[in-house]
């Protein structure tokens, strides 16, 4: 049997059916292949990843004359960028009881401008929106916990105590108190030299 020349393309029911069966079969086989069941380890990893999303939905970075968080700011910005988190940088100035609550504290206020300016620069460089706030309070711990509650923060990030401000406790009393009493996760970044010191003390 030869083919009549010039016979144009025509669609047969069988041909169309086979074409559909081929397309559906190939697509479904490949879809099935690409969705293997997850192992226990993968399930745990996925759960942890989901947990991280919840954990870093709103991040608050705390600065104060006693707490150096500059090195943690870059980390907070990277986290916020990756997870599209809300980011707030708070500078807390503790006003001594010997002064009125709204007393002028020019040195501390100047330091706050520097710290929050640096934080904003890091955030801008990474295309992350940063809210900043400077507060004067009697107790840093109380203020940080109150702001975290107000802002519904999921994570508080703190640096370590500054040189010469060692308050007796290993991480500084304020930092330890915040970590102990916060209702959300707290990440404390201890710079290397302090880490070494702590390591030596521990051993």
């Amino acid at each position: 049997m030869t083919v009549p020349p010039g016979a144009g393309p025509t669609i047969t029911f069988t041909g169309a059916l086979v074409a559909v069966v081929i397309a559906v079969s190939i697509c479904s086989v490949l879809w099935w292949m690409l969705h293997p069941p997850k192992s226990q380890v993968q399930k745990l990893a996925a759960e942890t990843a989901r947990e991280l999303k919840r954990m870093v939905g709103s991040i608050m970075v705390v600065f104060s004359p006693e707490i150096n968080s500059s090195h943690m700011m870059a980390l907070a910005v990277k986290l916020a960028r990756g997870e599209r988190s809300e980011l707030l940088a708070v500078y807390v100035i503790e006003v001594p009881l010997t002064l009125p609550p709204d007393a002028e504290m020019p040195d501390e206020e100047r330091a706050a401008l520097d710290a929050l300016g640096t934080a904003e620069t890091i955030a801008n460089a990474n295309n992350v929106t940063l809210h900043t706030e400077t507060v004067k309070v009697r107790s840093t711990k109380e203020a940080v916990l109150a702001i975290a509650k107000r802002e519904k923060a999921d994570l508080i990030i703190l640096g370590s105590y500054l040189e010469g401000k060692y308050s007796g406790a290993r991480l500084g009393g304020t930092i330890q108190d915040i970590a102990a009493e916060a209702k959300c996760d707290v990440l404390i970044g201890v710079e290397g030299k302090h880490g070494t010191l702590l390591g030596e003390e521990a051993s």
Partner: protein
Amino acid sequence: MASTSKPQLRRSVTPWGSFSWGYSDVGADIFVGLGLVLAAAAGASNVAFLFAGIVYVCIGLAYTELAATYPVAGGGQYFVMRGLGDVFGFIAGWAVLLDFTIDITLFAWTCVDYSSQLLPVLTGSIHPWVHFLVTLTLIVGLIGLNVIGVRESTAFNGIVSALDVVSETCILCFGFLFAFRPHLLVHTMQMSWPSPYQLMLGTSLAIISFVGLESISQAAQETQRPASVIPRTSIALILTILIFALAYSNLALGMQPWHPITDAAGHPVQFWQIFPNNGDNQGKAVALLASQVPYFGAIAAFYVPILGAVLLLISSNSGVFGSSRIAYAMSSSNLLPSIFQRVHAKFRTPAISIVTFGGIAILELLFAAFPSLHPGAMTIYARFFRNETGLDFLADLYAFGAATSYSFVFLALIALRLKDPLSPRKFKIPFNLPVRVGGEDAEFPIVAVIGFVGIVSILVFTLFTHPIGRIAGPTWLVLGILAYFVYRRHRGLPMFGSQKHEWRKAQVEILRNAGELELMDEYVANVKASDERRAKAAT
């Protein structure tokens, strides 16, 4: 503290990576096999593909179970060595090595054939020297690139495979939608049914469209969660290739070409009739078919030869590194001399393996191309090899090597089911008979027996219908076995028996390294329970 652990291959191959690793090898086969089978089996080409396809499904299932249970580099050779012993492991590995060397030449050859669709100067029958030299250059180039350690990335493999799957699906969908005539298929099958000899020849050639599945198991050691992923990628590959092979052969037989095709006398002929006695067309069958698909063929005529050539070149390259990988694995198991494990001081590649087996591929090319380069040699080939040259010669040996190694893999599957019932099998071939062996419950795989009978019959077809295959194939095996005995004697290792292996310890390590911790726990628990049962029975 200094670490004493050995560096492990990084598990970076994803499910798609694992699929494309196999697809870049098996997927290229239809580009070669279609024309050869249409030329040999004519109106029964679809039946030849169906028979070979059924055997291939059994092979695929066997490989899937074994690779998921023993996710190590080495593939078939490792399974056979573990199931049947060292000497059979060597034979299976040596047959796979033959296939890989043929793989290099066959796919480089057809890569040039596909390129000739756009560059007529590469047509083998018109410019045999150009065809030969370009093929030789490709092989030498691939050897060189592998020696200096340059390989196509898994990502590139993945992209080419994805493009090819989409492209072939489009060709088939458009082809069946606009060009398929069911009555023409029935008519062709009735009027052009081949002789039994031709059908056997076609079936033995059809199996080459399904060779290369072991690439997935060879990459098992680098695949993420191999016990879970490999069964899926293997089954997906089996089904994809089977759908393509059956669809292509039926379409080719029942296709009304978009542009009328005529013979030398100007009479219109059917599409499949352009393949018998035309080596040039046989080498680029998919490109020719794609160009005859209505509407889509206008685009396909340009890109399918290129896509086919790229896929075939990747497949040829997989022969180069596959042979060195197998040789490395065999050498690690003391089946081949340690020289094949030696890596180049500068490039850190198994250069000796690559050059040795690449060199064998070049010899095969010389043998295949010699009559076309020196017509005087044709009388010798006509007298001793029934004019088998070029593609026929390469396809012969390819079918022989595949059928031999696959036969042993079926036996290894049966042996391992009985000898090692404690290893957890995340994928198990269905249809099993419960048996009790050595105090343990085991399952005897019926599908493995069916597959073994099928592949042995294809091996018999190959030996019966391929004059070169029945001489060169067994010669390769016999020479290899002799060399193996000499090597084992020289090393003071058992010649017929096996070295002592700590399989239990090895299995725990395999599963731990594979990241299959749940399976490792299950295996340890099975072993403990078995030991307790035995201790109880002894008291």
